[in-house]
């Protein structure tokens, strides 16, 4: 039966090529636009650490003075150096790391290469085990190296390719800002998107080339980048001066692998704030937050507003395309009132006619979906040509490909429901008479 209806549908669609083409075009345009924007949205709101992000938390405490305080105000989005070190050394979580970003000049040994600047992450040792960074060679440093301000560095896959042609460079020397560092590890390709652990340096398609101990960076006065918020008499600092004690400029992340630990850690943050207030360092009542990675990204509204707006726009466009298709399909089905009347008179049930017409819509949907996929590929190519930082990430993956066809099929079946129902209401006798 299905095969027969399919045959009928194809015949019917072929009979009226212009109208069929119009419907397919409308569906393809609507699906193409929607899938382009939905794919961008999907990529941008993805999980940067699949499987792990639920256990990684970002503690926030409020060390500011009383100026500007009001109830319900969010604590600062970073920590001061003092609080960062206190929380780090308290070791109340399974893993914890204190970090900030910057840029360092690399002076290659090869004379053919000029010195160049790369993005750097200054962090404490747990960064690697906590975020599960994949190592190609070697490993990270340990907490003792942190305290010893070790001249040790972990480099990215790309930098290893550029400087050492991809060979195992562990144990070799790398000159950074005039200081010799020993390479202890080479990362495999690793670029979490969004760049969740520090959103100040750019949210997407951003990855550091070198990772070195935070305390080494402070010892050598390497240059810092990123956000820096001060209060009271705090000054933001310069390259050679660290920000004042009343400035937040570091990110602190912890790993807590069960809900009990999360609750306990939150209690710990409140106690810490109370202790600091008793010591006179904090002035505000305890104001803490403990968000996991996805909550943190959500709170920071990391997906650009424009991308959301574009998605709404595309869905509106798809709606117009569907109404359009619905109208055209209605016209098409009603034009065949005579043929449908004959089929009804010959004994076809309403249900059979309905199925036949829906299959016809489904065929339009599938062809439109294929066209929509091609248009979405074109749309994503156009997005990649743009200079937004997320442009390079806009690729169709398998799940979105499947979504394209499901969306196209569902949309056209939905659009076909009303016209098919209307066409089935035709009284066969009336149609037979008028012919």
């Amino acid at each position: 039966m299905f095969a027969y209806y399919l045959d009928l549908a194809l015949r019917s669609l072929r009979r009226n090529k212009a109208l069929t083409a119009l419907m397919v075009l409308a569906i393809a345009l609507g699906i193409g636009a929607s899938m382009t924007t939905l794919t961008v949205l999907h990529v941008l709101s993805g999980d940067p650490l699949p499987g792990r992000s639920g256990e990684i938390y970002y503690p926030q405490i409020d060390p500011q003075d009383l100026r500007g305080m009001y109830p319900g105000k969010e604590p600062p989005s970073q920590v001061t150096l003092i609080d960062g070190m206190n929380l780090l050394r308290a070791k109340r979580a399974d893993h914890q790391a204190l970090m900030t970003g910057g840029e360092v000049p690399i002076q290659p040994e090869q004379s053919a290469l000029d010195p160049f600047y790369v993005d750097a992450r200054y962090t404490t040792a747990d960064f690697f085990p906590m975020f599960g960074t994949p190592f190609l060679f070697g490993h990270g440093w340990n907490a003792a190296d942190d305290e010893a301000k070790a001249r040790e560095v972990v480099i990215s896959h790309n930098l290893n390719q550029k400087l050492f042609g991809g060979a195992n460079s562990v144990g070799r020397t790398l000159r950074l800002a005039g200081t010799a560092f020993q390479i202890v590890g080479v990362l495999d390709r690793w670029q979490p998107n969004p760049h969740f652990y520090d959103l100040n340096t750019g949210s997407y398609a951003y990855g550091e080339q070198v990772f070195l101990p935070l305390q080494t960076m402070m010892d050598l006065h390497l240059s810092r980048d990123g956000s820096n918020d001060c209060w009271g008499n705090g000054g933001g600092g310069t390259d050679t001066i660290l920000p004042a004690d009343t400035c937040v400029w570091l990110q602190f992340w912890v790993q807590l692998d069960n809900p009990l630990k999360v609750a306990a850690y939150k209690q710990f943050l409140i106690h810490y704030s109370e202790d600091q207030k008793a010591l006179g360092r904090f002035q505000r009542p305890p104001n803490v937050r403990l968000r996991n990675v996805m909550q943190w990204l959500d709170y920071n509204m990391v997906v650009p507003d424009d991308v959301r707006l574009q998605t709404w726009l595309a869905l509106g466009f798809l709606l117009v395309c569907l109404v359009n298709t619905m109208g055209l399909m209605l016209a098409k089905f009603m034009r065949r009132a005579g043929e449908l009347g004959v089929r009804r008179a010959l004994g076809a049930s309403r249900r059979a006619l309905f199925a036949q017409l829906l299959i016809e819509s489904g065929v339009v949907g599938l062809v439109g979906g294929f066209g929509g996929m091609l248009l979405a590929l074109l749309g994503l190519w156009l997005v990649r040509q743009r200079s937004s930082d997320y442009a390079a990430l806009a690729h169709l993956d398998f799940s979105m490909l499947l979504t394209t066809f499901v969306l196209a099929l569902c949309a056209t079946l939905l659009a076909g429901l009303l016209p098919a129902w209307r066409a089935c209401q035709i009284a066969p006798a009336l149609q037979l008479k008028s012919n």
Partner: protein
Amino acid sequence: MDILPILSTLRRHKLTAWLLILEIALTCAIVCNAVFLISQRLQRMDMPSGVAEHELLQIQVADVLKPVNPYARAQEDLAVLRQVPDVQSVAFSNQVPFGGSSSNGNVLLDPNQPQRTLNATTYFGENLVSTMGVQLVAGRDLRPDDFVDVETALKGLRTGDSKSLPHVTLITRTLAGRLWPGQNPLGRLIYLTPTVGLRVVGVLASLVRPNAYDAATAQYTMVVPVRMGADKSESYIIRTRPQDRARVLGAALAVLKKADPQRVVTTQRSFDEVRSRFFKDDRAMAGILLGVIIALMIVTALGIVGLASFWVQQRRRMIGVRRALGATRADILHYFQTENFLLATLGIALGMALAYGINLFLMLHYELPRLPAVYLPVGAVLLWLIGQLAVLGPALRAAAVPPVVATRSV
């Protein structure tokens, strides 16, 4: 044209007619909002900077090894840059208009007030006002003896020693108007922290923030006499004639590299590029919106053509009868045109209500202003035009139906 017969015919094709009206309404609503969004973006991209944009260049360099004396290094660089032919003026700044990255401070009118008055950006650096071509409308520019080295200022901030802090500032007219509406700002004090009081000595016509994301606060700008040392985050700003920019940029880079062959140039661009980069997302968004408007118009037009063709075919006999009873070709043509006009008008009326609904949704989620009523006629006219254009073909075909059709096939 009598519309009653048209209405009675449409009553017999209710579903199709309503679908067409719905499509026109949705298109109208989206187009009104899209045109409004485009105008918002264009208006944003037109935001004034207050500087002579076509005459300015920005260069940032990063030293591989920190200079022993970064202040001396900055002064040496400025000196060699001034020697470059056709360079009119050079400044060294912590930030540039529309540069993105910015230094900001909380402004207080009273050192002990519990909440800040507002947040303003702080430009640091010598010769900034004259080099960037910022217009001074009252008071004086900063003088060399106003300036304090940034490290001295930071130490002063920590120790509370007010002698090592800057004492004066320039502010924009907008900021002055916001802080002291209708009063003379010259000589008044503003506080960045309880210990840093700055006396306003000059008022600038306009100088935009580097991070001018919100038009309302884009001109909350101060210029503070702080001198920076050479550092990769500071910028050399060079003023030259528009036609000399490319050549001057090349020559300036050459002398900077000659002064220290080890250093790395991290930024080299004209201020036109700075602006273009800052507004790239707005430009892209305007382009996307325009594309959507065009695509919507095409889809709607094709839908109208499709449905009108269907109706013409369905009513061939009726047309033939009317023609046989004496209706002219023009009558038939006008019949279909009027029918389309009626449907479009209904759709537009519905669409306008919908447009306001969409606008309310956008206002709620995207900090957009209310849709001005002037955008509604724009959408209406566009849709009437599209409707009439789309129906013309099928209507002409209808008008070409010969009266003899009436006698056939009965």
